[in-house]
């Protein structure tokens, strides 16, 4: 008995064990419990469903939802069509992202492309900007008067009326998501191309390998792992994308799983929504296992940089200027031009009319009209609501970033320290689960979990705390992943050297570990911050008028058709995010690129 107590005391004496236990308890409540709730909710009659499930009371056990979703004459519209659409969109987006980002990565790392510096900076824009940015830009350009109410810039310039399939639905959703995640492909594939041992290609040249064969049989297979991880990252991100299909799909009733789930959760069939959420979690899990199975150990390799510093660059010769120009135009189309379109759209009085007389700054600085005219609000720069939203967004993002970054780093530290134990593995998996749960489903669960008091935990609905908690938990995987990866590269001896001379734990952390891992720590804060600033689906169901954030104001304005205000706010969000991102990058050298795929 005494022995057991001694063991326990020895166990608790290690700070990393205390950290792990802390995570078991908190994440158990904030992550595992919600997961169980989702499953439970698929078998339960909810308030809005009592009428349809005959002879039931609220909270009764039922298989009604399961039958309806999977085996009913309406299952096609409820589930199978959105599922099929999701698959189509996600696969298409992967194709767009990998071909665009991959070819850009190859051009930048392996050829004498012009203007590389500015091109690579601009290429990151779509990822730094909120995902719906391109969706709104697409609408600004290509909307048609049949569905969109007014004509877009493209039609105004050319007179060509865009067909519906081009302006709305699957095609633009695929394109927009693909372009948004193309930077993933560029970062991951470019990283390998850049770090790939040049000797591998030189060995092929010496053996008289033709350029084409070398590309097909050496270069491509070498970047395959990166292509695969891009595929997985883009596929799962595209699957859980909400804002883009909401903006571009809704006008033509094109539903994917997320928008269908939103409709159900927000409407009268929450049961369906929970099942869809479960299906999405399941797909995410399958992808993860496939990933681990495919990237097996057999062909694994490390990219040790060989002796030759510079790989011979492929000369584009007479195509140099045309290709460089083409990519400059493409990159401008997804970075600067959308912003111009927002600025433009925020300054026209009557939509679709782009003549100079139609321009105004009213939506930016104009005073509000009489209170009876609901859609003439004060210009966003003098609108108290908008300022409050901005303030809330900032507050929330800072808190969530601090929370996710700090806890994520601690988790990474403790996981690596105790690597090999079941406790460490358990916590590692726990920290990753929030990544798999679609934002929308996550927020619905929190909505019901925190609606009433549970023991010592008060009802949190409507409070700032619930937003902060969900933000922290949802972005934890980003920070903990990069924390684990960077801690793995730090030898235990560095900390042990301090332990030997009796430096206490907190001092070891603040004076040794954190300073060494500075750039990881900052990336660990930066990524959640940026993500939170542009987050919509996670917060949209949880905000109340008192704690609206900028993105939900944007969503609301957009739904109500207050286009100019929406565009203006969008512009503000983008400028804000870009300035902060590049500011932090310049100040600290940390960058969002380092966090991707971590």
């Amino acid at each position, binding site marked *: 008995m005494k022995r057991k107590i001694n063991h326990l005391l020895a166990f608790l004496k290690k700070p990393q064990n205390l950290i792990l236990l802390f995570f078991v308890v908190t994440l158990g409540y904030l992550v595992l419990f919600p997961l169980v709730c989702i499953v439970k909710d698929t078998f339960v009659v909810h308030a809005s469903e009592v009428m349809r499930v005959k002879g039931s009371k609220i909270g009764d056990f039922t298989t009604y939802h399961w039958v309806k979703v999977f085996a009913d004459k309406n299952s096609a519209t409820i589930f199978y069509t959105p599922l099929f659409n999701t698959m189509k969109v996600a696969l298409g987006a992967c194709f767009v992202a990998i071909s665009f980002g991959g070819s850009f990565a190859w051009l930048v790392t392996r050829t004498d492309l012009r203007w590389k510096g500015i091109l690579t900076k601009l290429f990151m824009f779509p990822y730094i900007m909120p995902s719906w940015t391109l969706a709104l830009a697409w609408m600004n350009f290509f909307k048609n008067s049949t569905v969109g109410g007014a004509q877009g810039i493209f039609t105004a310039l050319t007179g060509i009326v865009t067909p519906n399939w081009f302006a709305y639905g699957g095609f633009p959703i695929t394109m927009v998501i693909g372009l948004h995640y193309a930077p993933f492909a560029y970062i991951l594939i470019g990283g390998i191309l850049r770090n790939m*041992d040049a*000797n*591998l290609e*030189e*060995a*092929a*040249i*010496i*053996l*008289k*390998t*033709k350029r084409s*064969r070398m590309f097909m*049989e*050496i270069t491509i*297979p*070498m970047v*395959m792992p990166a292509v695969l991880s891009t595929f997985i990252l883009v596929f799962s991100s595209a699957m859980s994308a909400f804002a883009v299909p909401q903006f571009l799909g809704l006008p033509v009733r094109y539903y994917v799983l997320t928008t269908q789930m939103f409709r159900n959760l927000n409407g009268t069939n929450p049961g369906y929504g929970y099942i869809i959420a479960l299906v999405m979690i399941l797909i995410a899990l399958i992808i993860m296992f496939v990933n681990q199975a495919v990237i097996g*150990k*057999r*062909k*694994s*390799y490390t990219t*040790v940089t*060989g*002796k*030759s510093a510079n790989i011979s660059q492929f000369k584009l010769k007479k195509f140099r200027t045309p290709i460089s120009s083409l990519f400059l135009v493409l990159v401008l189309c997804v970075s600067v031009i959308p912003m111009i379109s927002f600025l433009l759209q925020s300054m026209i009085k009557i939509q679709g009319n782009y003549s100079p007389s139609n321009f105004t700054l009213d939506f930016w600085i104009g005073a509000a009209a009489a209170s009876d005219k609901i859609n003439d609000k004060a210009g966003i720069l003098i609108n108290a609501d908008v300022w409050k939203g901005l303030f809330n967004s900032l507050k929330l993002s800072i808190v969530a970033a601090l929370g996710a970054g700090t806890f994520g780093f601690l988790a990474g530290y403790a996981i690596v320290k105790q690597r090999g134990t079941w406790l460490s593995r358990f916590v590692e998996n726990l920290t990753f689960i929030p990544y798999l749960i679609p934002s929308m489903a996550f927020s619905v669960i929190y909505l019901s979990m925190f609606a009433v008091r549970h023991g010592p935990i008060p009802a949190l609905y409507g409070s700032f705390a619930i937003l902060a908690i969900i933000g922290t938990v949802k972005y934890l995987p980003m920070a903990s992943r990069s924390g684990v990866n960077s801690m793995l590269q730090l030898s235990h001896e560095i900390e042990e050297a301090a332990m030997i001379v009796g430096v206490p734990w907190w001092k070891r952390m603040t004076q040794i570990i954190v300073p060494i891992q500075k750039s990881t720590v900052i990336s660990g804060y930066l990524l959640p911050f940026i993500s939170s600033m542009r987050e919509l689906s996670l917060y949209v169901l949880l905000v109340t008028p008192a704690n609206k954030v900028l993105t939900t104001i944007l969503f609301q304005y957009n739904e109500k058709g207050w286009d100019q205000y929406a565009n203006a706010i969008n512009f503000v969000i983008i400028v804000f995010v870009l300035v902060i991102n590049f500011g932090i990058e310049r100040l600290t050298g940390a960058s969002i690129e380092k966090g991707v795929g971590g």
Partner: protein
Amino acid sequence: MPVIRLVNVTKKFGNFVAVDNLNMTIQDGDFVSLLGPSGCGKTTTLRMIAGLETPTEGEIYIDDTLVFSEEKGINLSPDKRNVGFLFQNYALWPHMTVYKNIAFGLENMKWKKEDIDKRVNELLKTLQIEEFRGRYPAELSGGQQQRVAIARTLATNPAILLMDEPLSNLDAKLRNGMRAELKRLHATSKSTFVYVTHDQSEAMTLSTRVCLMDRGVLQQYCPPLELYGEPTNLFVADFMGNPTMNFVDVKARKSENGIELTCPSMNLTFHPLQETEINEADDYVLGLRPEAVLIQEDGQIEGTVISSLPSGMETTLSIEVKDIRLSSVVFGNIDFAMDSKVNLTFKGNTYILFNKRTRNKVGMGALTIK
């Protein structure tokens, strides 16, 4: 017939001169080592021969074909130079099996399938890696990867084999084994080997000629024993040999007996093998190999043993003679007590006199103690 000829080859990276006006001829069937400390330009030289690096100036001939000329604007790509290259990190393609790695080059040459199969099997057998033919490089040990890399390089029967520190990633025991195999390989294949290494014993034991470089400049290019026995300057003398050569600062003056060398701890007469010019204003350095500092009971110089490092086959001593220290190697299984007195003497004509200012060898010969 010379196989490789470098004429006034210079390579600059920005302002840094990696290889400075190098002239070198490698004969058919030679095993030439490019030796030197890291950063001396040896790998750059090898890569320039292969065509993986472009020289800034100069000309390179392979088999009397001009493969590079800055002046004439000729630069044959690596695949047209008919050389084999063995990389330090092996550069095996991780996504191909051992068999495929070896066959790849033959496929490029449009060999028939049966011929490829025959050739690869033959190589797998010679290099004793038959059982690994289906494995991927990541599943092999360092030594096995090394063999695969050699097999891949040999597959196309290159007449010239360029090797970039191929043994440096292996552990000491494997390295010794592979050295012997490389030497055998050179003898049986009759190819010309150019071999980069920073390990002097590797260069000594393997090569027919060694090219010692320092900071991009060729120091001495000759057979290995000559490099050891007759270093042309202080750098070469210092670089070759372990334990290193003893250097004693001396003043020199010509006399009828030879050259009188004086320093605070010894007075010696140097008897050069050839007529040697001395400038009495200059400072000189006397170089003595440790094995030429002999311990003998009737030696005329008395010293104190500072340390004694017996290794079984020989013992390395550090001996203090007044204000200088000399290292000495005594063969046999002997140990010396710390602080014991020993008597030293000199014999043979392996002692070398260097000019301290020019750092070059002035003469070589015998020593007598006054």
